[in-house]
């Protein structure tokens, strides 16, 4: 009897897609119950979500493409931060420093907007590149510390997040004309905005960053599955010892993995800085894309397509926040759903561990299979 039940669970867990969907559904369910139990109408939550995805305001019966645009705008940094964590996870690292790497990319981009010459396309292009490199370095440091000194990347990246935040505030204050919360407006050539995209979405902030994010998703998949760099990283992630024993340079793999991971998050920061705003910001706190990116990566099971879909899902939740708030649904319910999703997903990872341990034990016991 017990083995029958376990068989079903095994099949369920084996299908990662099914697990992800189940976990998200559970998260929404609990969120709905919570909203209901404090006396608010959960239907408003879902109406808000439908509105940002389709543009239809179900209450007023109007359609506005701007909501869809904003949904995509919110999905971009979430997907990228998800890719950040996913890339590191495939190499066996738990990188929750996307928040800090995002800030570094953002800050450097803000600087580049004012410091570099205002040549069309090259201006924001260079800003993107610089932001990527800086964020990659920010992540790479942690990778190096981990590889060389076995420093736990979990605590190290959290520390780096806060260091990045305060360093960003300090550095941004050096931009001439900055007050306590913003810089002067960017030169036009630094901005990622595109008038065509804006017009088809009725004035949303959709920008070039959208295409960059799609390219990033493709790049993630390509590097991971099709290159020897990705092979080495995956081997390191699954079994550092065997990888090392085979001649793979584990230190290099870990450092590179964190660097690339940082670059993804940095790109998110650049896109938000130069795409969603027309001026630089002196950050008052964390934007939280990094932390929500964790949920994105976990739901997406650290794959390229999964992360993209999960990014769209969580982008949907985030962009619906103002609508929810205006209908008496506290916007934090989206963070609660994220948190629940992560807790539920942890079970999958754990079940996976247990299945692996059992398989190994059974293999040790028997030369009975496949003989």
């Amino acid at each position, binding site marked *: 009897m017990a083995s029958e039940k376990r068989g079903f669970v095994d099949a369920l867990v084996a299908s990662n897609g099914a697990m992800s969907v189940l976990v998200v559904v559970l998260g929404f369910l609990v969120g709905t119950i919570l909203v209901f139990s404090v006396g608010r109408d959960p239907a408003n939550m879902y109406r808000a979500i439908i509105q940002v995805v389709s543009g239809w305001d179900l209450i007023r019966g109007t359609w506005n493409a701007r909501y869809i645009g904003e949904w995509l705008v919110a999905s971009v940094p979430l997907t990228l931060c998800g890719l950040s964590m996913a890339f590191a996870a495939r190499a066996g690292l738990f990188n929750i420093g996307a928040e800090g790497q995002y800030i570094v990319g953002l800050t450097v981009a803000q600087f580049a907007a004012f410091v570099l010459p205002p040549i069309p396309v090259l201006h924001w292009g260079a800003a993107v590149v610089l932001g990527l490199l800086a964020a990659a370095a920010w992540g790479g440091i942690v990778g190096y510390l981990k590889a060389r000194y076995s420093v736990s990347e979990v*605590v190290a990246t959290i*520390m780096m997040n806060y260091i990045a935040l*305060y360093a960003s505030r*300090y550095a941004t204050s050096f931009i001439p004309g900055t007050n306590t919360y913003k810089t002067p407006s960017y030169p036009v050539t630094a901005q990622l905005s595109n008038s065509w995209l804006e017009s088809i979405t009725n004035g949303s902030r959709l920008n070039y960053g959208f295409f960059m994010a799609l390219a990033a998703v493709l790049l993630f998949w390509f590097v991971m599955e099709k290159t020897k760099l990705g092979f080495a990283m995956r081997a390191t992630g699954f079994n550092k010892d065997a990888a090392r024993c085979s001649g793979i340079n584990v230190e290099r793999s870990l450092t590179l993995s964190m660097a690339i991971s940082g670059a993804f998050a940095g790109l998110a920061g650049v896109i938000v800085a130069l795409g969603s705003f027309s001026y630089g910001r002196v950050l008052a706190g964390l934007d939280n894309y990094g932390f929500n990116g964790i*949920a994105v990566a976990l739901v997406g099971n650290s794959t390229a397509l999964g992360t993209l879909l999960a990014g769209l899902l969580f982008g949907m939740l985030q962009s619906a926040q103002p609508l929810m708030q205006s209908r008496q649904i506290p916007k*934090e*319910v989206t963070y609660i759903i994220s948190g629940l999703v*992560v807790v539920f997903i*942890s*079970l999958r990872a754990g079940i996976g561990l247990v299945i692996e341990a059992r398989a190994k034990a059974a293999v040790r016991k028997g030369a009975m299979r496949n003989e």
Partner: protein
Amino acid sequence: MNNLLGLVPSILMMASPILICALGGMVSERAGVVNIGLEGLMGFGAFAAATVNVLIEAVMPGAAIWVSLLAATVIGALVSLIHAFACISLNADQTVSGTGINLLANGLTVFFCQIIFHHERTNSFRQGMQPGLGGIYPTAYIAVTLLAIVWYILYRRPTGLRLRACGENPQAAASAGIDVKRLRYWAVFSSGGFGGLAGGCLVLTQTIEYKENMINGAGFIALAAVSFGRWKPKGVTGAACLFGAAVALAIYVVNIPALKALPAEFFNVLPYVITLITLVLFSGKDYAPSAAGQPYEKGSS
């Protein structure tokens, strides 16, 4: 010199929540369960303490503080049961589960602030905790008392011997007839209580309300203190004091003319930088409980 001595009460005020939280983290890890969610548990505790204090301070002045701390402890312990259930009974990945708790904390606490207070923070309470003799807050005494209790139980009582065995070699503990899962539940439950209490102490001594991102990494600093302190009570205390001193310095730097020239952000960053440096220099993986972080399954060898 006077200035430095004058800092001692502040250092104790900053270090106490870190120490209380770190003691909880130490107990949990010595039993074999890594509790990354301490940051979130502190958040839950801070929220609970602030809320209760606001609501009842008018009704029971004086006692309100203690009731609030109790509420914080209870809430922290209850929330940690989620982590315990996921990790111990369902063998979840402990790091992921803990991260989930942290995400939940930010969400749930502000959510309820909105419901109860209609703002994204609690209302301010009028009376926080009052310092006692020498300007030292009662939280320092609470921390020291807890330290003594934890040390006594871990090293003198059978429960402590068994708990530490669960973290080193749960198979050995199981073969000695110890209920590893039950002991780990108690460890995580206690660490949750400690975390909640730490959050409550933080909010009642250092500020006047709870708002989003208030904990700002203190829970992670506490985790680093556990590692830096090599999972022993003495070491953890020293580490907590060191980190507390860094945080205290950040706030009270205005009183030291020589350092006033440095930007505020330098001191904001100091505790995190120091934590990072200690992690690098003293990453003593050999000192960690051998089985910490691994799910325990009956019959696996």
